[in-house]
């Protein structure tokens, strides 16, 4: 157990990676063995991340030097020479969340993609994507971050094209093209930092930057920030995200949401931990600006759509806006984070968890509706509540949660964001609440279109039990976090926010 906890960060990346390479071989033997292998490797990884998370919450930052004589030997000659994985409460939370979503996705996919070919590659790419996201969240090193970002981009683009239709190829191509532009930005930014400091380790750069802060760092920060905002689909560059969420199979859309949240984590890591001690409040204002823009344009575009998954894609863009709003207010107060800014940041982090639960539930419901009716346009649907009452109950839960209505989880985190942002600037709260109300309007329309009215007359299939099970699990967590938000905030949200607002602890983990 101690052994596993000691090596957990490396295993969390390596186990899904190894599983991804073995999956196609097992797939040739038997589908059942392959499915069991995939789910067990993910469950094992989740278990590792869980014990790592407990360790980090108890003992603080944990660093792991790959290839060293002992894991803790990070700087043998005074500065770090190896790839270092650094775990604190923030990335333990993010990776745990990502793995939970990956497990739910795999269980959902068993039945969902049963009738399609290339299932081996689907699971293999899904595991590779998970490994990439684990790498992105655990790495303490800029170049490793870039490499895993590329792993994530390539594997998710391949997954987006899973249905092999013209539209899905177009979406995948768009995704690949735009994310490679983002990668060039990021590589350029990393190159500037490397040229300036001769280092790639985030913690050590954060320490050096206090002494040698110059215009070059501002350029590097803006390049990195642009690249990450592009990868997470904030508003000016959101079209690729909406397209890929629309055309991907529903479980893949869910994982794509998780990847954009890992991108958000990296943005926080760079903003708070690396540049947190030197930046002024402008960066926070920029994030707030993009956040408000995302909320507004996301919701306004969602109102117009009649393709269910495209609509959900736009609401996912809007939800990212709330997280940027909360985190931007927190960031604008760096390095002296006071009460309300800390509350806003915690609200933003809490909203990451809530957003992934709500949007995932809605996407999985959209996938189930496609599975049973083979239709994607909400105008062609109607009256499904007669035959599928439990699906409509799930949709109501998801819809109320995403619009921030109590007693569901969206309310808890949005209230935290509103309360604290009010002290920062009351106008932003008005815009945020307006976005929330419009979101409810969007989903009430969708609910009426899909579930209400005369019974549906086309051919329908049953929703398989495993798919229903995953959706109920998500609904359970939505309700649980909505009823007991304080439990979640005390156990893992507040430590995560603490980890972000104290870059000196992050730096101390390596040196």
């Amino acid at each position, binding site marked *: 157990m101690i052994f596993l906890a000691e090596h957990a960060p490396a295993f969390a990346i*390596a186990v899904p*990676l190894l599983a991804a390479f073995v999956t196609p071989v097992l797939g040739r033997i038997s589908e059942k063995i392959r499915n069991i292998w995939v789910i067990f490797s993910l469950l094992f990884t989740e278990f590792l991340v869980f014990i790592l998370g407990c360790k980090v919450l108890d003992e603080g930052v944990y660093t792991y030097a790959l*290839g060293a004589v002992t894991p803790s030997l990070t700087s043998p000659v005074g500065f770090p020479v190896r790839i270092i994985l650094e775990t604190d409460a923030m990335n333990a939370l993010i990776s745990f969340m990502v793995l939970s979503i990956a497990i739910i996705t795999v269980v959902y996919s068993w039945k969902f993609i049963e009738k399609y070919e290339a299932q081996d590659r689907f699971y293999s790419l899904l595991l590779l994507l998970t490994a990439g996201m684990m790498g992105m969240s655990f790495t303490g090193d800029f170049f490793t971050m870039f490499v895993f970002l590329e792993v994530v981009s390539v594997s998710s683009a391949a997954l987006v094209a899973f249905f092999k239709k013209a539209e899905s190829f177009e979406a995948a191509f768009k995704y690949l093209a735009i994310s490679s532009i983002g990668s060039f930005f990021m590589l350029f930014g990393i190159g500037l930092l490397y040229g300036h400091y001769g280092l790639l380790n985030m913690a050590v750069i954060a320490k050096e930057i206090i002494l040698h802060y110059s215009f070059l760092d501002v350029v590097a920060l803006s390049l990195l920030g642009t690249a990450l905002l592009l990868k997470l689909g904030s508003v000016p560059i959101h079209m690729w995200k909406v397209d890929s969420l629309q055309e991907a199979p529903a479980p893949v859309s869910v994982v794509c949401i998780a990847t954009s949240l890992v991108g958000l984590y990296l943005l926080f890591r760079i903003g708070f931990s690396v540049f947190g001690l030197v930046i002024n409040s402008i960066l926070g204002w920029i994030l707030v600006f993009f956040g408000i823009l995302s909320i507004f344009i996301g919701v306004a575009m969602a109102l117009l759509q009649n393709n269910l998954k495209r609509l959900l894609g736009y609401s996912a863009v809007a939800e990212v806006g709330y997280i940027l709003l909360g985190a931007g207010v927190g960031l604008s107060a760096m390095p002296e984070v006071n009460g309300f800014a800390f509350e806003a940041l915690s609200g933003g982090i809490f909203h990451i968890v809530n957003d992934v639960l709500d949007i995932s539930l809605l996407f999985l419901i959209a996938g189930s509706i496609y599975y049973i009716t083979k239709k994607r346009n909400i105008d062609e649907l109607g009256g499904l509540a007669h035959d599928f009452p439990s699906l409509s109950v799930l949709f109501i839960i998801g819809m109320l949660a995403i619009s921030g209505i109590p007693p569901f989880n969206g309310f808890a985190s949005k209230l935290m964001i509103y309360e604290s942002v009010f002290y920062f600037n009351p106008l932003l709260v008005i815009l945020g609440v307006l976005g929330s109300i419009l979101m409810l309007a969007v989903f009430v329309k969708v609910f009426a279109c899909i579930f209400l009215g005369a019974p549906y007359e086309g051919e329908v299939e049953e929703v398989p039990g495993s798919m229903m099970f995953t959706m109920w699990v998500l609904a359970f967590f939505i309700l649980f976090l909505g009823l007991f938000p304080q439990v979640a905030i005390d156990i893992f949200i507040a430590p995560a926010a603490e980890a972000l607002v104290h870059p000196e602890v992050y730096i101390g983990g390596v040196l």
Partner: protein
Amino acid sequence: MNNEYRASVVVRTVAYILAAPLIVFGLYVILHGHLTPGGGFAGGAIMATFIALFLVSFGRKGAGSLHRNLFSVLESLGLTVFVVLAFLGISNTFFYNFMVNSGHLFGRVISFGVNPGYLDTGGVIPLMNIAVGLEVFSAISLIVLEMFTYSREDKND
């Protein structure tokens, strides 16, 4: 009709002549990865040019004799070997080089200072280079083969 296509005798003869040097050079770059520039990726790519040359000179008939499944199994194998080698150092850390200076395979103990570059050093690094070389060779060959198979046929043929 296209199955009958073969390149001219000049191309085929040059392909015969170049085949062995290409493979040998690729293997050389892979095996000397820990001593000289190059390594698994570069060497694998060089070896994959052999497949490209083969396809150019022997056309679709040649492509028929290459097995896609074999390449994808080799690719998975290379990656698995790489990760397993990284796992083997786990008594210290993941990716720990447990074979260097051991006196066994690739474990020659060398003294500090200038030396001509002994092949028998580097521990797991040469083995990982071989795994990466295998992976890159089969992956690029697979890509070339797929692109060749699904490319549109020329109207003039």
